[in-house]
């Protein structure tokens, strides 16, 4: 009980700063609806740790009743103190707006605490607990309260400063010497209380004394550090989540700036050239689409999204090939890939052949769109390049044209693949390329 009183005093100076702004209503009805409904300790308008006012706000009761209940329970065997301490440790501080405390309420609260202490002293003297038990207990309570209070303060400081400190920072909270002094004082009080308690029981023999002192030390350390660990873990989780969110946002903004906004600017400048506008827009669409939905895209693992790394997967590589042709020839290449596998030497050759087929279609077919369909099966990989353009008569291709013969037929055959060309003048062209997969 003295612990609560002591803490109230350390708190007074700062509460006095915020106080005169407005008269806080004793029963905060109107603020109730805006809260998330989760129990929070109040940061201001508190006498000790803001537990009572937080509970009052949560239950929508006058804060005086809650304090009265805590005091009454404290007189009944100290249950109120225990409840208060547990709530203090496990209920997070509210990070909401600050509300100053009224003079009247402060007086009521202090009166309640004094009344409670008096009742406790009377009760203790009535049941005649030995002084060597009560006095060290009070000292320990005061010390622990000081340290815990400092943990609250350090948390608030870290909120103010944006919270980027290590464990030492979490302990001291950037409070510097004052914080150190307060923590040392609190720790000293706890140790002192425990020592007094042990000295008071010196009639017990040495072995039990040793055991007891170890146990008491451990309890002391636990009591001192529990609130920090609880809050440290909680704060770090909250902070990590918000940092990830803001990093994501920054990354999306940066990407849109680098790609879409730049392209739109270029399009505005080159609005006269229809072909150039189409090329820019198509390239941008492909890039953004790949970023959003592609196999290396935004939704997947970030390491894979490095642009200039060689594509190790067939589908991504085919997409890149089609994109290059789109850019160079300002046509649309619609590509559909079923399945995927790792690239090897044969498939690289097939990709080169497919590229040549798409380039041929872009150059000679005279169409705006080429379809590319690839299917990865367990035994072979098939690529079909199709356009609905001019078509040609295979028998009348001059001998000096090497594209189809060398780049497609030759390449595929050297690696054991097959090529079939279906075409006739006026009905478009389809190049079918099949490559057996390596046995591995």
């Amino acid at each position, binding site marked *: 009980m003295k612990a609560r009183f002591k803490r109230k005093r350390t708190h007074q100076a700062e509460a006095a700063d915020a106080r005169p702004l407005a008269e806080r209503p004793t029963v905060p009805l109107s603020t109730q609806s805006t809260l998330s409904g989760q129990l929070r300790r109040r940061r201001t308008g508190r006498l000790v740790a803001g537990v009572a006012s937080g509970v009052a706000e949560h239950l929508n009761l006058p804060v005086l009743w809650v304090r009265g209940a805590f005091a009454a329970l404290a007189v009944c065997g100290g249950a109120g103190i225990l409840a208060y301490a547990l709530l203090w440790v496990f209920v997070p501080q509210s990070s909401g707006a600050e509300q100053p405390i009224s003079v009247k309420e402060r007086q009521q609260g202090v009166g309640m605490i004094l009344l409670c202490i008096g009742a406790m002293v009377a009760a203790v003297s009535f049941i005649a607990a030995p002084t060597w038990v009560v006095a060290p207990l009070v000292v320990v309570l005061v010390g622990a309260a000081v340290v815990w209070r400092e943990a609250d303060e350090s948390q608030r400081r870290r909120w103010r400063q944006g919270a980027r400190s290590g464990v030492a920072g979490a302990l001291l909270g950037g409070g510097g010497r004052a914080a150190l002094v307060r923590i040392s004082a609190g720790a000293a009080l706890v140790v002192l209380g425990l020592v007094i308690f042990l000295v008071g029981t010196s009639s017990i023999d040495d072995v039990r004394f040793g055991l007891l002192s170890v146990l008491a030390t451990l309890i002391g350390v636990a009591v001192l550090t529990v609130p920090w660990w609880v809050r440290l873990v909680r704060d770090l989780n909250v902070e990590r989540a918000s940092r990830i969110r803001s990093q994501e946002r920054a990354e999306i903004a940066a990407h849109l700036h680098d790609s879409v906004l730049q392209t739109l600017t270029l399009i505005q400048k080159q609005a006269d050239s229809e072909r150039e506008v189409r090329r820019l827009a198509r390239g941008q669409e492909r890039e953004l*689409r790949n970023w*959003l*939905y*592609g*196999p290396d895209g935004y*939704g*997947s*693992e970030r390491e894979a999204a490095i642009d200039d790394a060689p594509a190790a997967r067939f589908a991504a590589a085919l997409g890149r090939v089609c994109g290059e042709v789109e850019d160079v020839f300002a046509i*649309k290449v*619609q590509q*559909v*890939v*079923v*399945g995927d596998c790792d690239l090897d030497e044969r498939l690289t050759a097939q990709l080169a052949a497919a590229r040549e087929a798409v380039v041929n279609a872009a150059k000679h077919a005279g169409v705006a769109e080429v*379809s590319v*369909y690839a*299917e990865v099966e*367990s035994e072979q990989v098939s690529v*079909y390049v*199709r356009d*609905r353009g001019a078509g040609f008569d295979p028998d009348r291709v001059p001998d000096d044209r090497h594209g189809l013969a060398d780049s497609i037929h030759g390449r595929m055959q050297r690696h054991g693949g097959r090529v079939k060309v279906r075409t006739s003048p006026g009905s478009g062209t*389809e190049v079918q390329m099949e490559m057996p997969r390596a046995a591995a």
Partner: protein
Amino acid sequence: MLIVTGEATPEVSESRPVRVFLVDDHALFRAGVRAELGASADRVEVVGEAGSVAEAVTGIDHYRPEVVLLDVHMPDGGGAEVLRQVRSKNIEVVFLALSVSDAAEDVIAVIRSGARGYVTKTISGRELADAVERVRAGDAVFSPRLAGFVLDAFSEGPNSAPVGDPELDLLTPREREVLRLLARGYAYKEIASELFISVKTVETHVSSVLRKTQLSNRYELSRWASDRRLV
């Protein structure tokens, strides 16, 4: 559909344009679709449009269109949500998904919720009008990309999970063949002549693929999506 009896003029049922309702959260895109479909005004008539799920549900209820052109990506749940709500009201209307999305999970989700087809937003106005007429007639319309998605979902990879109900979950070789040609960019008519079957048969195959896609509730689609880290 009008039921034409006896001597009534068949032209009436033939020439009446299909009543279409547009759902897309981008007003600019809706205006574009209206303009594109305006060129085929004798075949397709846009009776209304909506920019959100709630508007769409009310609008479809009010206008009773024959075909709804449905965007996949919208706030408040997207096309699948519209489908769910309209279907629960038991309105007889056919949905055609019209999407810019390349994310197979979205597209497959809309198809599985009961859309009769899926076309991409790069489609030309004439092709879109064709697609609308075809779904109105009870057919399924697949774009090459969707055909690729479905093939991928049903493909029997070396590490594919065991299939619980083969009749439901597997595509017949003929259906695979049809889908593969679709994915290669063939039109229904070209597929028919390629496979020496009638266009009607092609349509039947595609419709049964659609039914399987809607019915098969397990393994392939979810496994396929999770393989690609889409879920």
